[in-house]
């Protein structure tokens, strides 16, 4: 594998080239930019696999490619701080590169059937957007420092703005695009503050190596490092604060409570874009960032507990909203929020492997479900309301079976991939929660969410595919081509088998060594020192307890979640797997109304904006207009007034000038005389 890493930048550059080509020449190309996009993402995929193989053969890569600013950070960091672009390829980023480029590749292929076949206009713009999106995500994944990560994090946000607002002539799409951009941007303000704080505190922004901020923070906490801590805070508190600031960006991008409101609206974009955003790029970016700098969070139990609690809460909160939605894409949107909640819960309880595992599995099955929904939308002649579907099972078997595989994985039914990762997250939460009530609460919320997940997933499946057709479109679906079916089949297979990567419960019960992902992330093939599961484990401050024995705990955790998943799915079966399903919403009473209105999240955020932020900014504006501008204008008024007085001296009459000169001369003479003591 000598020299494989020399080609690492190409992984991200391929889609960038595709972006430029699609933008500049897309109009003249036969498929309007699809071909360069497919070629580029295929290239990225091949190179990513090459990197994966290189890491598997025991090598890693950490190189600074370009240094764009060097300066003095001040404070404790006496040597200058460097702002660089660099590449870090370790087991985590190699895995993520493969996931991102695979999903991006399949989405590009799917787009041939979804966008090209539908006679869309603006296709070059669409493919350019996809290319730029893939580029920014890939570059974000292999970023070796926090600042570079931040820059590409922002670029990902920009791309989501461009793609969600693809149908800019409608009223809702631009509004959704703006909302997505602004809400995630709001989180990114905190992220930026966190970047600045970390840079100022430790004088470095590197993720890995001896000079990483994780090492610096660890040393500072042990009392033998020099770190700048403001305002007499303890180092503990400051590390927690900076970690939480960065977490702000994560909450925004990964759509965690309370910054999740943009994501359901983002369904206004093309379904393929949703698949890319939800599975591999934007929403995954937040969780990936937590995994990337997991060593830093591991230093702060408070930050981890907050991550876990927010994750558990979001998992339940979003799952309940998914239950009452009628639009197939809306259900999936809330499902995404909920599933990323699980990942946050997993990472928050120190289950690094579990979180990454779920990130991987979710990328496959959520991409599958979104592309499946896209396929359904094509079948249904662009109808998204599930109440108008039904009976698609026989008419579109490929879509049905692959969608079913994704649904089983999402609901966490054994042995599909989602079960293994979700179960591992819940198990990790349980063993920590035994000793920690906050984590226990987060675990309980995550556990209850399993029931809702099972319910809404199968409600969606039954409404869409089972029963009798409930509209003309469902009677006579539009056929879908190979470019739609092939990505579905590939992802369908992955959704079924990806769980093999880490069969932790089986490994614990049968004492066999089949936790491949854990070994992979633990750096048994190749890893950068300090960025392994084992190294993170040493930084964690959690105690793991068990109920009875370890085997019993595994059985309890898996049994509980399976039971809940089955009962959720079973309830959906009972209520909706009938020829003529009816809505059961009225049974929920007023709670149903609240849930359907998304707990008035949008309303209260609008109220916050209008009732609090607007008066506050008005007051600030008033202050600016009067006090600040008053001072500035006052200063300039003085000089204006002075000069208007002075200019009266300029008469243009020579005599006056002569008189002034003489007067001045006489005064000068008098002053000099007085000072010189002539008259005394």
């Amino acid at each position: 594998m000598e020299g494989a890493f020399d080609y690492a930048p190409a992984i991200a550059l391929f889609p960038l080239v595709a972006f430029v080509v699609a933008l500049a020449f897309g109009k003249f190309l036969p498929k309007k930019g699809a071909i360069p996009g497919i070629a580029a993402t295929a290239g990225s995929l091949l190179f990513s696999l090459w990197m994966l193989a290189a890491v598997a053969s025991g090598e890693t890569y950490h190189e600074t490619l370009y240094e764009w600013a060097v300066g003095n950070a001040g404070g404790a960091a006496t040597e200058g701080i460097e702002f660089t672009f660099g590449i870090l390829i370790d087991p985590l980023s190699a895995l993520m590169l493969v996931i991102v480029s695979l999903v991006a590749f399949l989405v590009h292929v799917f787009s041939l059937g979804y966008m090209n076949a539908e006679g869309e206009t603006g296709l070059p713009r669409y493919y350019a957007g996809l290319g730029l999106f893939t580029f920014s995500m890939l570059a974000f994944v292999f970023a070796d420092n926090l600042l570079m990560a931040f820059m590409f994090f922002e670029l990902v946000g920009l791309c989501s703005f461009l793609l969600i607002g693809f149908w800019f002539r409608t009223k809702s799409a631009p509004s959704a695009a703006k909302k997505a951009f602004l809400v995630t941007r709001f989180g990114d303000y905190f992220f930026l503050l966190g970047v600045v704080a970390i840079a100022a505190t430790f004088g470095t922004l590197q993720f890995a190596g001896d000079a990483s901020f994780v090492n610096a923070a660890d040393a500072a906490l042990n009392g033998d490092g020099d770190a700048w801590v403001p305002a007499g805070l303890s180092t503990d508190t400051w590390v927690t604060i900076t970690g939480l600031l960065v977490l702000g960006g994560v909450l925004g991008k990964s759509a965690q409570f309370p910054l999740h409101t943009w994501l359901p609206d983002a369904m206004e974009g093309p379904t393929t874009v949703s698949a890319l955003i939800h599975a591999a790029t934007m929403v995954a970016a937040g969780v990936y960032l937590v995994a990337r700098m997991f060593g830093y969070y591991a230093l702060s139990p408070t930050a981890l507990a907050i991550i876990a609690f927010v994750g558990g809460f979001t998992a339940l909160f979003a799952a309940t909203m998914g239950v009452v939605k009628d639009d197939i894409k809306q259900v999936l949107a809330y499902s995404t929020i909920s599933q990323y909640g699980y990942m946050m819960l997993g990472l928050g309880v120190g289950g690094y492997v579990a979180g990454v595992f779920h990130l991987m599995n979710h990328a496959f099955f959520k991409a599958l479900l979104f592309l499946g929904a896209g396929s359904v939308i094509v079948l249904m002649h662009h109808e998204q309301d599930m109440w108008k579907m039904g009976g698609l099972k026989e008419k579109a078997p490929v879509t049905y079976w692959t969608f079913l595989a994704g649904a089983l994985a999402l609901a966490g039914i054994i042995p599909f991939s989602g079960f293994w990762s979700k179960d591992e997250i819940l198990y990790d939460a349980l063993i920590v929660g035994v000793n920690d009530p906050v984590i226990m609460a987060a675990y309980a919320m995550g556990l209850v969410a399993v029931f809702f997940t099972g319910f809404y997933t199968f409600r969606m499946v039954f409404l869409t595919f089972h029963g009798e057709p409930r509209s003309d479109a469902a009677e006579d679906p539009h056929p879908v081509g190979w470019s739609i079916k092939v990505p579905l089949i590939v992802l369908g297979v992955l959704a079924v088998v990806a769980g093999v990567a880490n069969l932790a419960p089986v490994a614990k019960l049968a004492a066999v060594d089949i936790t491949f992902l854990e070994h992979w992330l633990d750096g048994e093939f190749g890893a950068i020192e300090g960025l392994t599961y084992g190294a993170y484990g040493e930084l964690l401050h959690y105690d793991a307890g068990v109920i009875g024995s370890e085997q019993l705990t595994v059985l309890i955790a898996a049994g509980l979640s399976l039971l809940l998943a089955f009962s959720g799915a079973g309830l959906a079966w009972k209520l909706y797997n009938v020829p003529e399903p009816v809505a059961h919403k009225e049974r929920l009473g007023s709670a149903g109304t609240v849930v359907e209105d998304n707990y008035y999240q949008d309303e209260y955020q609008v109220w916050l904006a209008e009732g609090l932020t607007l008066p506050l900014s008005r007051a600030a504006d008033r202050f600016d207009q009067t006090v600040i501008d008053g001072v500035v204008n006052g200063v300039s008024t003085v000089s204006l007034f002075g000069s208007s007085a002075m200019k009266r001296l300029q008469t243009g009459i020579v005599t006056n000038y002569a008189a002034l000169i003489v007067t001045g001369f006489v005064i000068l003479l008098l002053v000099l005389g007085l000072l010189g003591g002539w008259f005394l």
Partner: protein
Amino acid sequence: MTVPIEYYVLLSMGLFCIGLFGVLTRRNALMFLMSVELMLNAANINLIAFAFYHGNLTGQVFSLFVMALAAAEVAIGLGIILVLYRNFRDVDVTVPTTMRW
């Protein structure tokens, strides 16, 4: 008999004050020039008187310079006055005020 230095200084002062008075009160540009000449001459008297008093020729040389300067000044001054007259049909220095700012 030698005239004491005070008389020269008084003469020079008087001459200078007459010149200054002319500059400050007259409006005719030609009178201006003449008044300036008076002031320059007052300076020359001082220079020569002090040179004589100290027994050194530097002051007298300087007074020669001042005369050359005065000649040059008159040449330019007359040129300006001619232009003034051409533009304003007058040699009153209070009339042209258009170059104020």
